[in-house]
C-alpha cells in the first residue's frame, strides 16, 4: 500500500489532506472529529488580534449554485475570521495538538498590517505547540474592508513585509495564503518568497455574487434585503486554482517553492492533480462542509489505490510530474494534427455533436447519410477542435485521433512529423529566424 505520509516544511502528517482554515476548523470539537475521521492536518480557522472578537452577521452566510439534483457546485460565504475569543482558541489549539501529535496543526492568522500587531500575536501562537502558521492574505470580504485579508494580498510589497516580520518574530514555518483576486498570481507569490516565506497556499476564495434573488432583487445570501459579495469556493473554482498553482510552479522565480493546493478538491483525483502540479499538501473545505469529515476516507483510499496501480510508492514519486508539461501557447506543436472520430456502435444519435459543430464551429459533422440519421466527421472540414467530444453525452464515443502521416485532408498539406511552434511560424512577424 502506498505511503501517503507527507513532510511539508518539516511538518509531518500521515496524509496530505488538511482541512483548510474555515468553519470546520474553528474549534476543538470539530477538529477532534476531523482527526478521528482521518484528516492529516488542519489549518485552524483564522485568529485575529487580542481583544473583542469580530462580529458576524446573524443571518445567512452562504450562497450556492447547484446542479438540477441540488448537487452543490459552488458555494460562497460572507463569514469573517473566527468570532471566538482569542484566548479560547489558543487554549484549544494547545490541547488538541497535545492529543494529536502526529497530525499537522497550522494556525491561520490575520491581524492589522503593522509590525506591532504581528509581533504581539506570533509568540502566543508559537506557545500552543502548533507546527506552522498560515498568513491569511486572501479573505475577500469584510476583513479586506478593514485593511486585512485580500487587501493585503493584492499588494506584493505588503506580503513581503509581513512575511519578513513573521520570519523575524517566529520560529515556525510560514505559509502565505494567496488571494486569487489579482491579475497575475506570480507577483504575490514572488513577494512571499522574497519575504522569506517557506511556502504559499492557494487559492483563497474568489470575490463573487452567486445569484440574485429575482423576487426581492438582492444578492444571495440576503441580509435584511441587502447582499454583499462573498468568497467563492467549491468544485467550480478548481480550474482557476489549478492554473494559479501551475503558474507559480513553473515560474522561474518561484519554482520549487512549496505549495499547499486549495480549491474545489472533492475527490482523491482532484488532490492527485494538485500534487502532480507540485503541491506538497492539499487543503479541503467545501467538500467537508457538504458531506462531512468522512469523505477523507474516500480521498486517502482513492489516492492510495491509484498510486498502487501506477506503482508510486510515495507522493514524491509523482509530485510535480505535470509541471514540465504546462507551457505557453506559443510553444505548442503546430504540426500536431488530430481529427474527431465517432464510434458508430456507441453513438446514440442525439445529434449534439452535429449541431454544435454546425451552428458554432466548423460544419464538419453530418446529420444524415443516405436518408437516415447518421453522424460522421468529415475529415476535410474537421479542425480537430474537440468541441464534439465535449458535448457528446456518451463516454469515449467521440475520440480525437492523431494523424501521423499522409496529408491533412482539410489543408491539403502533408503531415510534418517534426515539432514546430509559433515562435518559428512564417506567419509570426516576431518569428525568430535561425541564423544562416
Amino acid at each position, binding site marked *: 500500500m502506498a505511503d501517503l505520509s507527507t513532510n511539508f516544511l518539516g511538518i509531518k502528517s500521515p496524509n496530505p489532506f488538511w482541512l483548510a482554515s474555515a468553519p470546520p476548523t474553528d474549534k476543538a470539537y470539530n477538529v477532534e472529529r476531523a482527526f478521528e475521521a482521518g484528516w492529516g492536518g488542519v489549518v485552524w480557522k483564522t485568529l485575529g488580534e487580542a481583544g473583542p472578537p469580530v462580529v458576524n452577521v446573524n443571518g445567512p452566510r452562504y450562497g450556492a449554485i447547484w*446542479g*438540477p*439534483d*441540488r448537487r452543490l457546485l459552488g458555494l460562497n460565504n460572507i463569514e469573517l475570521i473566527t468570532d471566538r475569543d482569542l484566548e479560547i482558541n489558543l487554549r484549544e489549539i494547545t490541547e488538541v495538538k497535545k492529543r494529536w501529535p502526529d497530525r499537522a496543526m497550522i494556525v491561520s492568522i490575520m491581524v492589522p498590517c503593522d509590525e506591532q500587531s504581528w509581533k504581539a500575536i506570533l509568540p502566543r501562537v508559537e506557545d500552543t505547540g502548533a507546527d506552522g502558521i498560515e498568513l491569511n492574505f486572501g479573505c475577500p470580504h469584510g476583513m479586506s474592508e478593514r485593511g486585512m485579508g485580500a487587501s493585503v494580498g493584492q499588494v506584493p510589497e505588503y506580503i513581503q513585509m509581513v512575511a519578513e516580520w513573521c520570519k523575524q518574530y517566529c520560529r515556525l514555518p510560514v505559509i502565505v495564503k494567496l488571494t486569487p483576486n489579482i491579475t497575475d498570481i506570480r507577483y504575490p507569490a514572488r513577494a512571499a518568497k522574497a519575504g522569506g516565506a517557506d511556502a504559499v497556499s492557494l487559492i483563497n476564495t474568489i470575490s463573487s455574487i452567486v445569484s440574485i434573488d429575482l423576487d426581492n432583487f438582492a444578492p444571495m445570501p440576503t441580509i435584511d434585503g441587502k447582499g454583499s459579495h462573498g468568497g467563492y469556493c467549491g468544485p467550480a473554482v478548481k480550474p482557476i486554482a489549478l492554473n494559479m498553482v501551475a503558474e507559480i510552479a513553473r515560474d522561474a522565480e518561484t519554482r520549487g517553492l512549496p505549495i499547499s493546493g486549495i480549491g474545489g478538491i472533492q475527490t482523491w483525483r482532484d488532490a492527485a492533480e494538485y500534487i502532480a502540479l507540485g503541491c506538497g499538501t492539499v487543503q479541503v473545505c467545501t467538500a467537508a462542509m457538504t458531506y462531512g469529515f468522512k469523505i477523507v476516507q474516500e480521498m486517502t483510499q482513492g489516492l492510495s489505490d491509484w498510486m498502487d496501480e501506477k506503482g508510486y510508492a510515495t507522493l514524491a514519486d509523482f509530485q510535480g510530474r505535470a509541471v514540465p508539461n504546462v507551457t505557453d501557447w506559443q510553444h505548442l506543436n503546430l504540426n500536431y494534427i488530430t481529427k474527431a472520430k465517432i464510434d458508430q456502435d456507441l453513438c*446514440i*444519435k*442525439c*445529434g*449534439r455533436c*452535429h*449541431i454544435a459543430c454546425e451552428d458554432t464551429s466548423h460544419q464538419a459533422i453530418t*446529420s444524415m447519410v443516405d436518408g437516415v*440519421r447518421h453522424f460522421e466527421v468529415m475529415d476535410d472540414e474537421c479542425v480537430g477542435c474537440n468541441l464534439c467530444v465535449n458535448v457528446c*453525452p*456518451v463516454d469515449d464515443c467521440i475520440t480525437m485521433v492523431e494523424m501521423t502521416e499522409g496529408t491533412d485532408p482539410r489543408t491539403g498539406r502533408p503531415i510534418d512529423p517534426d515539432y514546430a511552434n509559433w515562435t518559428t511560424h512564417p506567419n509570426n512577424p516576431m518569428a525568430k529566424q535561425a541564423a544562416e
Partner: protein
Amino acid sequence: MTVSETSDVKARRLSSADYADNFSDIHPPLTPHEALVEADRCYFCYDAPCMTACPTSIDIPMFIRKIQAGNPVGSAKTIFDENILGGMCARVCPTETLCEEACVREAAEGKPVKIGLLQRHATDTFMEREQSHPFQRAAPTGKKIAVVGAGPAGLSCAHRLATHGHDVTIFEAREKAGGLNEYGIAAYKTTNDFAQDEVEFVTEIGGINIENGKALGRDVTLDQLASDYDAVFLGLGLPGVNALGMEGEDANGVVDAVDFIGVLRQAEDLSALEVGRRIVVIGGGMTAIDAAMQSKLLGAEEVTIAYRRGQEHMNASLYEQELAQTHGVVIRHWMMPNSLHVSNGAVTGITLERTELDASGKLSGTGETVTLEVDQVFKAIGQTPDAGPLAGADIALEKGRIRTDEARRTSHPKIWAGGDCIAGGEDLTVVSVEDGKIAAESIHQALIG
C-alpha cells in the same frame, strides 16, 4: 370439465378504502424536484427523434428545457402549440411506443426520459396556475364551422379553428363532451374529472359552442350542416362494437368492454358497480387491457385475457400488457372463443380453442379446447364505424370508414373528417388530435386562403 350452474356477479367486493386506492392515479405526477431532475436527463437532441415520433410533433426538447429552466408554464405553451389536449395525451399516450421509444436515452440505457410525465408536469402546472388561456383568437372571420363529435379530434379541430377567428358549433350525441377521453379510458389514467377540466380549458379560447345531446342523423343531418355552415368536420369516433357472433352472446354477464369502461367512468360510487368473481376478456387491444385491469381493481378474483394471436401481435403495448400482468391479470395467447355456456339466462363458462397459423399465415383453430368457469365475459374485439348518419351526403368510404386526403378532406368539398372514424387511423387519442389540427388548418385555408 363441468361448468358451474350459477354465476357470481355482485357489487361491494372490496372495502371503500380499496376502491379509492385501486382507482387512484396510476402514474402519480412528478414532484417539482423530480421534474427538474428528470428534465436534466434530456440531451436537447438535434432534430430530436422523440419529436418525429410524436404524432402531433410537439417540440419535446424545447418543452423539457423550459421545465429545466424553471418555466413550466412556458413549457406547457410549447406543448399546447402543437397539441391542445397535451394534458390528456400526457396521461393516455402509449409513450412507450411513441416518443419514449425514440428517446436516445432508451438507446443508451434502456431508460428513456420520462417525456409523458414531464408533459403532464408542465400541462398540469399550467392548468393549476394560469388563469388565462394560452392563445388569443384572431380577429373574427365571420365563418361558421360545424364540428360533429366532441372527442379528441373534434375538440382539437374546434380549438384550432377558433384561434383563427372562426366560430365553431360542436354537436355531441352524449351528455358530456370529451368522447373517448370522457367515456373510453380507464379511470385510473385520468382522475379528478380531468377530461371535463380539459374541455373547459380548450373552449376557454372562445368562439366554441358545444351542443350536447345532439346526434348526427337523429337531431341534425349532414346535409343541413353542410348547407348551414361554411364547413363541417366529422369526428364521429367508432360508435359500434364488434360482436362475437356466437350463441349465448345475449346472456346476462356477456358485456361490451366499451360499455363497461364507460359506465365505470361515469359512476359516482365505484362500490355500487357489479363485477364477477371470474372474468374472461376477449381481445388484445387497449380496451381489453383497460377492462381486464379495472375488473380486477373492482374486486374480480380471476381475470383472464384471451387473445387469438401471439403477444407480439397485440395492439396493447408490451408495457400495457405487463401492467395488467403485474395486477394479476392472466394473458392467454393463441386462444379464441369457441362457445359460451349459459345457465338460467346467465353466462357461466366459456370454451376457448387454441389457435395456430397455418403455412400460408392464416389463423385457424386447432380443435384443442379449454373451458373456464366465468361470471362475466367482456367483449373487446374492436369497434366499428356507423355510416348511417352519413347517408345522403355522398361521402366516400373505405372499409366502412371515411376516406380522406392528406389534409383530412373527404370526397365532399365542404366536409372534413378525422380521428377513429377515418380510414387508416391508428385509434390513438394523439393521432385524433393531430387529425383535428390538420383538418382545421385545411379548412382555414379553404375558407380564407
